[in-house]
């Protein structure tokens, strides 16, 4: 992996690529390939087609690069494309119902935390999470992946999912509760 301009931010690279330095797009791919592969893999739970989806994400990012506003976060922008592609993929391939419309976005949540208590998770819990993620709905799975694995803030997740920031907190709380319930059920079944 060769970094051509390691000191430059993503938002600074975009105008250079638009001006014709196509090679620099490779640097953006280097920076985001692993992150997006992990995200798509965990979100879709279909490891076989992950590289196809990620490839489409990068192609779409390049095609729509001139629509990117350099004053905003490139990270959120490319994750938004990855989210859209993953949802499209899930709708095509998966038998499970993908619904992102819910009552979470209807009402304000004035008491929802703007940031969760802690992000650190133990290795055991991490492994447990990996195995249990597939058992919860994509809507809740996605916020957990973005927050705990991809290290995005509540504001960035809100930008990616196009939902209010307080709703992110509510979703994470519900996702954790659902996951906990799933884990307990599995434990008793075992």
């Amino acid at each position, binding site marked *: 992996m060769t970094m051509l301009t390691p000191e430059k931010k993503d938002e600074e690279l975009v105008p250079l690529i638009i001006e014709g330095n196509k*090679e620099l797009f490779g640097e953006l*791919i280097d920076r985001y*390939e692993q992150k997006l592969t992990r995200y798509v893999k965990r979100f879709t739970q279909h490891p076989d087609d992950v590289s196809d989806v990620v490839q489409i994400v990068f*192609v779409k990012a*390049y095609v*729509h690069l001139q*629509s990117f506003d350099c004053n905003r976060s490139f990270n959120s922008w490319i994750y938004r494309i990855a989210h859209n592609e993953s949802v499209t993929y899930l709708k095509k391939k998966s038998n499970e119902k993908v619904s992102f419309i819910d009552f979470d976005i209807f009402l304000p949540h004035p008491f929802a935390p703007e940031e969760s208590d802690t992000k650190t998770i133990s290795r055991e819990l991490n492994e447990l999470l990996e195995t249990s993620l597939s058992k919860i709905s994509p809507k809740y799975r996605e916020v957990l992946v973005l927050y705990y694995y991809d290290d995005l803030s509540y504001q960035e997740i809100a930008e990616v999912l*196009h*939902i209010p920031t307080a709703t992110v907190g509510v979703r994470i709380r519900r996702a954790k509760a659902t996951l906990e319930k799933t884990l307990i059920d599995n434990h008793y079944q075992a």
Partner: protein
Amino acid sequence: MNTIKTTVLDYVKKDTVMMIPRWKFVLYSCLGVLGMIFIFLLTVFIVSLIIFLMTRYGLTYMPFMDMVKALRAVTVLPIVLFVCAVLLLFVIEVLSRKYAFTFRRPLIVTLFIVTSTAVLVGFVVSESGAHEYMKTFAREHRIAPMLRMYDRPVRFGPPNQISVIRGEVISLSATSATILLFDEKSIAVAYPRSGQSTSSFVVGGDVLVFGVLENNLFVMKSMRHAPESSFHKRASVNAMMHHERMDKRYATTTKNIFVK
């Protein structure tokens, strides 16, 4: 070099995939915003039309929180227009949801802002006399779809239920008054048996009559005058001035024809 990077850069270098130019995004954004403005204006027009049609039943001159008013409002509500307005508001909400200023807020808040703005602007448009002007225009030029929109038959409430009508007094007798309703049909209004004074009835007056419909006779319980709002007065003056201008233009045209 990994596969994804190789493949994507290969596409990029060989121009198999090309960037969409910025002007296209600007154009799409402008079209999107214009489309939303158009849908919003259409919604405002429909809302103002609903308010205008309901105002002709005298609802705006009745007490604010009153069961009779509430029931009457439900009876005379143009359902099709109401459903159209709700659908358009929903479309505006869905279209605007992709913008950060909307999706950052809860749906109920943005929906409330959009709906209240549409109702407020619709009310101002309705009160400005624009619909009165368009109705007159439609009648003068015999524009059938517009006439169908404005000249709707007057709806009464369920039998033996108190109802309210609004219209102009065209004749008076010892026991009843005849009122011309907004659909150009007249109705006989029987004075109350309680002996309430009916001296307020004056030929040419715009009145609200509360009563019950019994065998094509509206038995009055009470009545009041429908005061003209300043908006309506202004609209009447505007309409009058328009007619004067039209008369002058017609006179000039006729004169020119005769000169030729």
